[in-house]
């Protein structure tokens, strides 16, 4: 037990190596590119993107859904697994929650930057009706905004509540990197009991959010008329996909934490293997969704949707559809083998595959459906411009930067929880 605490303390005390600075500089450069591209977008207009009147939404919406999806694993691990008393989650839930927090920030940026008139983004909030303008509550975009804000708030509160005992512990051990309020935490028995009850309360609050947030994101698509979007399977399909990609991201950072800051004894192979099993299960679930979607499309009655799926299976979309099947449905099947499940290299590779595959899935949903529609008004195809991809690179850079700084300045493994478990 002492050993784990020492490991964490030594990890926090260690001087950052060249790798740390390299990652920070690279992510700063990426963030800079993103800032430049965002400023360009706001200054010139979304015309500097590749979108047109047939493809009104482009990779910004793909990125939005992708980031929101990645955020889901955090809540899943911290809330759902807490309620299910899955104790193996203790060393990774802080990591997962931090991922959640920053990925929601990245995700929330995209609906803003894709607007035509950025300065008026606040019209979407139900603010005081002084202008005689009120939001349309029937629009899924409004629900979307509400869902993201609720999710961000609950995640932040949850994250910080769990962080307070650790910050106290660090301060007691003389490691104060950033001064954050502790709200008079003194680690008393009464406080510990209250803390435990409050986290359970927050977990029960956050658990429905795991389902609802991505369901609402999927409803953005599902309530529309567009063939390929208008599908009742979307809410569960999106939630499964979200947790899937989120776990892949957590795996990536868990393995990084093991190797880079020497937490191999804390984040054990058992934990990695358990999460790999979950990835495998989710991959099979996702494949089932793909199959169901295809079968639905070929049921008689919906010609337009069939056209969309014919494009995916044998038309213009095959260059993204079959890679997606390979990355999402076939590669994770390697986790049936125990050696693959326990191999860190394989975990990283397959997690990267899943992340890329899930991005492709959203690309197919957004672009593959819009480019077919009921009819085309012109034959110009959509291809993202440098500016659009630059903004995506910027959010990636921001995310990596924030995660790196979090690794440096915050206890990325919950000492409090681990101690509690050992005490039990």
């Amino acid at each position, binding site marked *: 037990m002492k050993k784990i605490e020492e490991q964490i303390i030594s990890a926090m005390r260690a001087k950052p190596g060249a790798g740390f600075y390299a990652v920070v500089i690279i992510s700063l450069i990426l963030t800079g590119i993103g800032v430049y591209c965002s400023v360009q977008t706001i200054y010139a207009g979304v015309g500097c993107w590749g979108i047109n009147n047939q493809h009104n939404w482009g990779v910004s919406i793909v990125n939005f859904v992708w980031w929101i999806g990645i955020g889901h694993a955090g809540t899943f691990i911290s809330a759902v697994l807490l309620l299910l008393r899955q104790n193996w989650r203790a060393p990774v839930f802080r990591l997962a929650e931090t991922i959640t927090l920053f990925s929601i920030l990245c995700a929330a940026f995209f609906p803003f930057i894709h607007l035509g008139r950025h300065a008026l983004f606040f019209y979407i909030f139900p603010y005081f009706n002084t202008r005689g303008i009120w939001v349309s509550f029937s629009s899924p975009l409004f629900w979307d905004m509400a869902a993201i804000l609720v999710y961000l708030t609950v995640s932040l509160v949850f994250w910080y509540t769990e962080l307070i005992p650790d910050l106290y512990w660090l301060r007691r051990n003389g490691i104060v990197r950033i001064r954050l309020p502790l709200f008079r935490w003194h680690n008393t028995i009464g406080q510990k009991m209250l803390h435990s009850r409050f986290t359970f309360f927050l977990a029960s609050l956050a658990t429905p959010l795991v389902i609802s947030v991505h369901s609402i994101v999927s409803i953005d698509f599902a309530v529309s008329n567009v063939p390929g979007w208008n599908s009742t399977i979307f809410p569960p399909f999106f939630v499964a996909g979200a947790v899937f990609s989120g776990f892949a991201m957590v795996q990536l950072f868990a393995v990084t934490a093991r190797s880079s800051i020497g937490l191999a004894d804390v984040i054990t192979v058992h934990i990695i293997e358990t999460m790999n099993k979950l990835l495998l299960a989710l991959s099979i679930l996702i494949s089932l969704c793909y199959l169901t979607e295809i079968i639905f499309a070929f049921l008689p009655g919906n010609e337009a949707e069939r056209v969309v799926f014919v494009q995916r299976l044998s038309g213009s979309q095959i260059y993204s559809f079959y890679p997606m099947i390979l990355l999402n449905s076939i590669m994770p099947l390697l986790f049936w083998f125990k050696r693959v499940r326990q191999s860190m290299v394989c975990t990283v590779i397959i997690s990267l595959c899943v992340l890329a595959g899930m991005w492709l899935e959203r690309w197919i949903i957004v672009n593959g459906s819009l480019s077919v529609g009921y*009819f085309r008004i012109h034959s110009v195809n959509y291809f993202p411009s440098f500016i659009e991809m630059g903004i995506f690179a910027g959010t990636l850079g921001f995310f990596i930067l924030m995660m790196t700084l979090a690794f440096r300045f915050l206890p990325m493994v919950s000492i409090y929880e681990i101690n509690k478990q050992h005490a039990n």
Partner: protein
Amino acid sequence: MYYLSPLNMNNRRQFIKNLTIGAAAGSLAGCRQTVNRSIPYLIQPEEIVPGESLHYATTYYDGYTYGSVMARVMNGRPVKIDGNSHSSLTLGGSNVRLQASLFGLYQPGRCLYPLVKHVRAGWADFFSQTSSLLKQPDKDIVLFCRKGISPTEDIVMNDFLSRFPNIRKIEYDTVSCKSVSDSHNQVFGRPIQPLPVFNQVNILLTFSGDLLVSSPLPEYITRHYCQNRTQLRHFHFDCCSSLTGNKADKTFCIHPDEERVILANLYNYFAVLNRMPAIECPEHHILSALPLADTGAQNLLVISSSADPEVQRMICRINYLAGAYSKFLKPEYHINLRTAQPAEIVFSDKTLFEQSDIFIFYDCDPVTDSLLDAEEWKKRLADKPVIALVHENNRSSALAGYIAPVQHPYEMWGDAMAVNGFYSFQQPLVVPAGESVHRASVLLSWMDTEQDITDYIQQTWMNLFERTDNFADFIAFRNHILQNGVLELPVLPVALEMKETFYQPVFNRPGGIRINILPSPVTGDKMEINPFLNEIPDPVYGTLEKDIVFSNHQDYTLFKRNGISHHHLYDPNHASDVITGYYASPFHRFCVSSGFRFTSDDMVFSKERRSPDRFIPEISASMLEAQQDYLTVNPSHVHEQQNWIMSVDLHRCTGCGACMIACQIENNIPPVGMTEALKGRLMHWIKIGKVNMADGRRMAIPLLCQQCHQAPCESVCPVAATMHSTDGINQMVYNRCIGARYCNNNCPYHARVFNFYDYASADPLRENDPQWASSLQKTFALMRNADVTVRSKGVMEKCNFCFHRIHKARADARTEGRLFDPTDVNPACAAACPAGAIIFGDRNQNDSKARRLFESENSRFLLAKLNTSPSVAYLCNSFLHYEKD
């Protein structure tokens, strides 16, 4: 306790806090909106009421496009051109080029001041220098001009030529129908181009060329063709696809050389009937496909726009033998348009340039029209003096030493006689730009006469007045013709007698590749710098590229010769061994410079990565469905006053695109520039689509916002920027729009368009460079309709059934104290349609034509199964052929 005081800077934190607050407050206080002041008139002109529009009848003629038009003038600026409903030649219809002609008036390239050797000079300077040039009797002077149709200008020109006998006038036409008048001269001894009428025509055979959009009077032809469409059977013979071919009952794909053979066979058919000697010709199988025997070959009319004199000669004889001249072709109403020598022939004569010493360009652009390079012209002109009378700077004026700015057709007085007996009149709509003068008055100044051009015009009109007897005095006559813009005088009937008894055409089939050049259905005889026309996709093929050729060569290929390549489009309905290109396109210029000599070895078909993009929506016939009653979750809207609907007769629509530009100019829709257009960001609120029918034919369909009663776009807007009005229109509140673009995704018709950039203040001619504030912006702003908002960057927009016109009609009714009559309202697209295909009206009005058509059994709704309950009905007869059972 903190004090927020600038003096309280006793520590570093407080100093930074105060500094930040100060900087923020300072920058906020510095933000100020720019104020554009509008200044009222110092002396209010009597007839101008701000916001009220005046209508003036006038005439537009630029050498290719002619139209008697009714212009709407707002605050002294013409803002909209429509066909003149008083004219029997247009019947209120117009075409793309007439609609877009306003751009010529406002375009920044207008020539404003006289230039002598590229230096601004006064008129006195200009005349003193040019007169001394002209008054050299030993010099041979050539005056180039387009075919003139103005009686007054003809008189001025004749006076001018008799005053200067050393000046030779050379009239030319770009797309010439001279072969028609020449053949009439050969066959009947009269060089005329008769006006066709389609009443009682049973069989119409059209050969090569787009009769409905590229003939000299397209509005007239379209209107009469559509009126009589149900009773005539139309067969079209051409080597390529065309709008006329799309309207025909059956289109035969023939090689251009087959035209002579088919016509010779047809001639023999009638020759046998009339006991005339037949001509020797090879047999052709197509003739048996025509229902000549069923109808007894009665009431047949053959029309071709071919430049081949043999073809035209045979057509004259066929029409004569079929009796068409007494019924369908009126020799007394002969068309004066496009009867001059074709430019290609005029400018192929190099000796003309060698023998002449001075050149005058009389309001024309011979450098562009000749299809030769500017380098070639420089070589030919060899630094000889050139005097150019131009209303806009062009390639010719760039070569001229003396430039006289003349008025645009919308700035000058004048008259025109496009068809014998049909006069139309010109009056200025706006104060002339800069120091420009009437082009004929430049001639008068050179003649040193006391008379002004208005005296000549007065004299011509007096002569016309003497030929009428309906008017009390000349003032009443003048007011009448200026109000109506037209005057139709009776003409003596002419009977044609066939002079030549026998004629043997030559049949040859040269090998190699044939080049088929036809005028573009949109831009006509030139690839002009008109952003409105440039952005109309080709109505036949849907491409936007100017440099494009069509053939039936498969794969995505590029036509290549000597390193020069042109975009190539595969057309399955194209004849083999023929390449079609548009008049004045780079391909045509290339052909002219290489002398039209091609063999198959010259053509290298190489794989291109992609074929040119197409910008017309293609929909399948199954998407047009009869309306069904579905259960609706939402309560349907109640429309107590009006419920606006539109019925579009697909049997009438030719797909010419006049509605697109009419809508664009009426609603201040900015052109986006070619770069943006090729990205698929065209802003047209109404688009011409194509319905692909089961038998392979393609029908034009105007696609606009369907003004759904259960609109998918309304429910998804997060800020309630689009909603249903009380009279059934799906409104768009531009102020509220934040540009999330969900509405356009959810619109199954893709009726909405988005302002991706600040198009309204961008410069489409310079490809929307970052330097957006340009000279064009200033002139474009003058062209805008003051009744319609200009949309900014990041706003979605769409058709609103010309809501401002409805609003205006309501306000007018209120001021005049009468009940509002829904038939007073006509949207811009419906007003512009030459075919009368768009019928707008109120569904609550029991006797309205629109309602009758909307509720008829022929009405179909686009994607009716989605239950959007559209307000636009498409009338089509279950896609039956026109053939009667």
